[in-house]
C-alpha cells in the first residue's frame, strides 16, 4: 500500500516492539520496506502512482491496529466487491495530516478520504474550504448512524455533510496495575497525572488540547468553559516536572506503557484495549468529564464522489462497521438501538447502549478552534520549560 516510507518504518518498528515479528523477520522486512520506499519514492514513483491511480481512492488514517482493522475488514473486501482499490496512508496526529493536505497541490488535491478525529477537526477542514457536499441518498446505511453523532457535523456545514461519523472513543488515563492500584486511580481521577509519587513515571500526549483538557479537570474547571487559564498553565508547569516523555504517536504510547518506561499517561481507549488484549497489565480510567471524541470519514474536495459514496456506504454496513470496531477497539457510530451489537463491541470502552451519548463530553469546536493559535503556542512554551 502507498504509505509514506517513514510510516512504513514506524509500523514495522511498532510491530517489532509489540513482539509480533521476530528479530530475523524485522531485518528482512526492513530491507523490503527500503526497497518499497525506493520504488514508491524514487524515480519510478510517478509510474507507480499512475498505475495505482486506475480505479482507486486514497484513505488516510491513524495507522497501527486501527489501520490494520480498516484494511482487513473494509478496504480489501470493498476492493473485492467493487474493483475499486483503496490506497491507505497513515498519519500520527491531526495537525500533521492537515499540514500535508494543505501543502498538497492543488491544496487537498492529492488526498481523498481521511479518518478525522473530533468535530473540531471537521470544522477546521470546512473552514479551510476542503469540504464537499455528500449525497445522503447514495449512502443508504447512513440511516443506521446515531443522530447524536450526525447533528454536530450538520450544524457546521449548513445542514449538509462532508463526512460520515464512523466511531467514537475517549482519551482517558492508562495506568500500570502492577504499580498503581485501581482504587488509587479511581480516587485520584485526573489528578493521578499530577501524583508526585509517580515523578518520571508519567507520560502525556504532546497535543495541546488534551493537556489543557486534563489540566481543567485537575483544577476543577469545565473543559469547554475554562475560567481560570492561569491555573491551567500553572498546573501544566507543575505536571511538566513530573513527566518523563510527551509521546507523539499511538505506537510510541503503546511502547512506553508496554516497556514500563511510564506507569500512567493519558491514552486513547482503543490503544489501551489493544494493550490489554496483548496481556499487558494496563488499566483504563475514564474520569468524570473524560475527553470523548467522535471520529468521521471526511471526504476532501476534488475526490471522485461516486467512489466515495460507494466506499462510505460499504463501510457503514453493519457487517463491515462491527468488524472494524472489533479490530480497532473503538465502538462504531451505528445506533445500538437499531442495530444489534455483539457482546465484544458492547464491552469496548466508550460504548453507549442508549445511542444518545448523553453524559459524554466532547470538545466544543468553536470554543477550541478559536483558541488554538494562542493556546497551542503557549502550550509549546510551557512544555519546553517556560
Amino acid at each position: 500500500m502507498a504509505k509514506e516510507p517513514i510510516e512504513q518504518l514506524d509500523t514495522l518498528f511498532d510491530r517489532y516492539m509489540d513482539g509480533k515479528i521476530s528479530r530475523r523477520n524485522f531485518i528482512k522486512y526492513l530491507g523490503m520496506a527500503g526497497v518499497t520506499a525506493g520504488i514508491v519514492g524514487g524515480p519510478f514513483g510517478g509510474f507507480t502512482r499512475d498505475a495505482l491511480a486506475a480505479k482507486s481512492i486514497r484513505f488516510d488514517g491513524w495507522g497501527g491496529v486501527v489501520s490494520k482493522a480498516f484494511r482487513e475488514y473494509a478496504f480489501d473486501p470493498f476492493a473485492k466487491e467493487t474493483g475499486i482499490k483503496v490506497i491507505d496512508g497513515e498519519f500520527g496526529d491531526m495537525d500533521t495530516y492537515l499540514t500535508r493536505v494543505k501543502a498538497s497541490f492543488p491544496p487537498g488535491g492529492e488526498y481523498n478520504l481521511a479518518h478525522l478525529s473530533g468535530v473540531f477537526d471537521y470544522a477546521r477542514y470546512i473552514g479551510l474550504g476542503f469540504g464537499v457536499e455528500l449525497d445522503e441518498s447514495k449512502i443508504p446505511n447512513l440511516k443506521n448512524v446515531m443522530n447524536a453523532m450526525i447533528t454536530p457535523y450538520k450544524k457546521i456545514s449548513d445542514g449538509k455533510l462532508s463526512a460520515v461519523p464512523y466511531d467514537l472513543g475517549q482519551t482517558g488515563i492508562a495506568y500500570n496495575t502492577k504499580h498503581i492500584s485501581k482504587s488509587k486511580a479511581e480516587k485520584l481521577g485526573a489528578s493521578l497525572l499530577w501524583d508526585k509519587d509517580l515523578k518520571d513515571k508519567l507520560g502525556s500526549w504532546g497535543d495541546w488540547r488534551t493537556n489543557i483538557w486534563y489540566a481543567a479537570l485537575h483544577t476543577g474547571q469545565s473543559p469547554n468553559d475554562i475560567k481560570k487559564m492561569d491555573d491551567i498553565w500553572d498546573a501544566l508547569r507543575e505536571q511538566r516536572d513530573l513527566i518523563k516523555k510527551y509521546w507523539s504517536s499511538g505506537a510510541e504510547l503503546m511502547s512506553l506503557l508496554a516497556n514500563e518506561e511510564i506507569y500512567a499517561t493519558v491514552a486513547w481507549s482503543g490503544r489501551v484495549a489493544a494493550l490489554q488484549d496483548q496481556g499487558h497489565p494496563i488499566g483504563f480510567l475514564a474520569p468524570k468529564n473524560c475527553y470523548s471524541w467522535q471520529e468521521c470519514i471526511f471526504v476532501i474536495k476534488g475526490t471522485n464522489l461516486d467512489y466515495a459514496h460507494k466506499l462510505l456506504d460499504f463501510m457503514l454496513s453493519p457487517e463491515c462497521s462491527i468488524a472494524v470496531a472489533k479490530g480497532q477497539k473503538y465502538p462504531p457510530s451505528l445506533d445500538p438501538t437499531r442495530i444489534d451489537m455483539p457482546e465484544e463491541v458492547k464491552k469496548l470502552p466508550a460504548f453507549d447502549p442508549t445511542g444518545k451519548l448523553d453524559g459524554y463530553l466532547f470538545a466544543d469546536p468553536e470554543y477550541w478552534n478559536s483558541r488554538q493559535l494562542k493556546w497551542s503556542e503557549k502550550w509549546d512554551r510551557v512544555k519546553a520549560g517556560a
Partner: protein
Amino acid sequence: MEQKSWKPWALLAPSLSAVFFLLVVPVCFIIVYSFWLRAPTGADIPAFQFGNYAKFFEDFFYPSILLRTIRVSLETVALCLIMGYIPAYFFYRTETRYKPALLILIMLPFWISFIIRTLSWINILGETGLINHVLMKIGILNEPLSLLYNEAAVLMGLIQYLLPFMILNIYVSLEGIDKSLLEAARNLGCTEWQAFKEVTLPLSLPGVSAGCLLVFVLTSGTYLPPMILGGPGNDMIANLIFKRVIGTLDWPFGSAISVLLLALLGVIVFTYNRYLGINQIFKSLQSGGE
C-alpha cells in the same frame, strides 16, 4: 570560440536547474512566507510585515532554544571530534589489507534508515533495554537507570548519526599527508608523539575543521534525535520549526525561524569559507562516495 561558450552551460544546465528549482525556489518561498500572517483557522494571509521576526525576539524563550541548539551542536562537534580522530588516524596508519573493508564499515550505518537507527537506542537505553537488563542481571543494579529521554540520550543519537561524517573528513585530510614527512621528522630526532604533534596534527586541521563544520550544520538542522530520545526540555530549533509548521499550521512563523537558522548557518559557513576554504568538505564527500 562561440561554440565553446555555450557548451559549459549546456553541461551545467541539469545541475543548475536542480539547484534552482530544488533549492533557490523553495528558499524564496520560505522567505516570502516569513512575512505573511496566519489566520486562526490555519489559512495564510499574504502580507509584508516583520511581526514573525519580532515575535522570535520578543522574549527569551525562542532565542534560548536557538542557544540550546548551538550548545548541543558544539557538544556534538567536540564529542565527534574526540571519538572520530582516533579511528581516522588508525585508518591512515594501518597497513592491513582489510583497510577498504574497514572503511566500508564506517559507511555501513548509512545503509540503515536514520529513524530505525535512532529508535534502536530505545532497545539499548530503555528501562527494559539491554544495558539495564545486563546490569540488573549481574546484580550491579536493583532498580533500572533512567537513561532515556534526556540530553545525554539526544547526544548519543546525534553522535551515532554524525560520527561517520567526522571520521571521513579527518581521514581524507590525513590521507593527503605525505608519509615521508613523518619519516623525515623521525630521522631528525622527533619521537612518535612529537612527529604527530608537529607534523600530522597541523596538516590534518583542514579535515578537522571541515568535519566540525559539517557536524555542526547537520546537528543544528536535525530534529529526530531530540524528538525520539529527548525529554520535555530537550527540543532544538528544528523541533520548534517542525511544531510551528506541522503542529500549529503556523507556516509564516515557522518560515521566519527557518530563515533565522539559515542566516546563522550562512554566517558560520561564510566565515569558515573565508578563512579555511569550503573545498575541503567537497574533497571529503567525494572521497566518501568513491
